């Protein structure tokens, strides 16, 4: 009963935040609302007992990506989204409604949350839950799956993070070409 109440409250706040993001034009406020959206999602994950995912969502979604988006705003120095003159919302609205309806229709086939007969819970999951302690000695099954059973996948994830870092550095990293002449000026300013 209390779970249902918490779920409804969190989902309602998620919807309100999403609508507020769509309605606003001040990009700084929108970024702050993105952070709030991430925190609400993290709270939802906690309610669904996925604390590891909630942890990541709060740290990455609400923390680092908010900072990075603010840094981007500071770079572009344009805090207002300018609505174009020829803005016609009807076609996008229709696309969104049709897509949303298709997604809702798709959820009808999904097994209920926590259903023990669900395909995801009948394949390898029972093995992990039963044998994790005797095979790896690690009580947190999330960690034993992530680092040991699915270690090769996680290696791929780390390489993805690494590649993303290289891509950002290639695009905007390093000093700007003009910065050599800027350097003495900047040092004076800092002093």
């Amino acid at each position, binding site marked *: 009963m209390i779970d249902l109440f918490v779920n409804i409250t969190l989902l309602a706040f998620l919807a309100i935040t999403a609508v507020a993001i769509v309605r606003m034009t001040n990009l700084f406020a929108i970024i702050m609302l993105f952070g709030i959206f991430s925190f609400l999602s993290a709270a939802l994950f906690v309610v669904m007992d996925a604390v*590891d995912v*909630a942890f990541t969502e709060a740290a990455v979604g609400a923390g680092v990506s908010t900072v990075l988006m603010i840094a981007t705003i500071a770079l572009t120095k344009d805090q207002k989204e300018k609505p174009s003159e020829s803005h016609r919302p009807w076609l996008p609205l229709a696309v969104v409604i049709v897509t949303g309806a298709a997604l809702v229709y798709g959820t009808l086939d999904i097994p209920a949350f926590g259903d023990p007969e669900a395909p995801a819970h009948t394949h390898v999951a029972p093995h992990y839950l039963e044998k994790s302690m005797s095979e*790896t000695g690690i009580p947190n099954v999330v*960690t034993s799956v992530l680092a040991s059973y699915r270690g090769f996948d*996680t290696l791929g994830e*780390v390489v993805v993070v690494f590649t993303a870092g290289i891509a950002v550095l290639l695009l905007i990293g390093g000093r700007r070409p003009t910065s050599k002449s800027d350097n003495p000026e900047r040092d004076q300013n*800092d002093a």
Partner: protein
Amino acid sequence: MTHNLILRVVSKTLIPAIIIFALYVQFHGDFGPGGGFQAGVILSAALILYALVFGLDAAEQVIPPTLLRSLASLGVLIYAGVGVVTLFLGGNYLDYSVLGSTQIAGQHIGILLVELGVGITVFAVMLLIFFAFADRGRP
């Protein structure tokens, strides 16, 4: 923001606590929620806070971007290296059981090293991306 006394005092007390928490998340991930990904992000958040309050130059003195580039590669190297070591010890790639005297001891060593690699790479890459953005925004 460099002249804001309250921010400086509060963040000076907060940053050590954040770093300790990141280490806790890193090494306690076997028993509770957490692991390398979260710990790396939290550790980078501590340094991002430092950079926001005390300035980018101070943060780059604490941990220079050239070092961060090496660290980002080092994490991947540790992770992939553990796999190569297990190959040489006669196991499959990333089969940690051969690392220790017993299967569970081996798994513990392997998972600790692998999570360490994840943490180092995530920390370095997050901070590198932040530095890349912040560097562009210098006056």
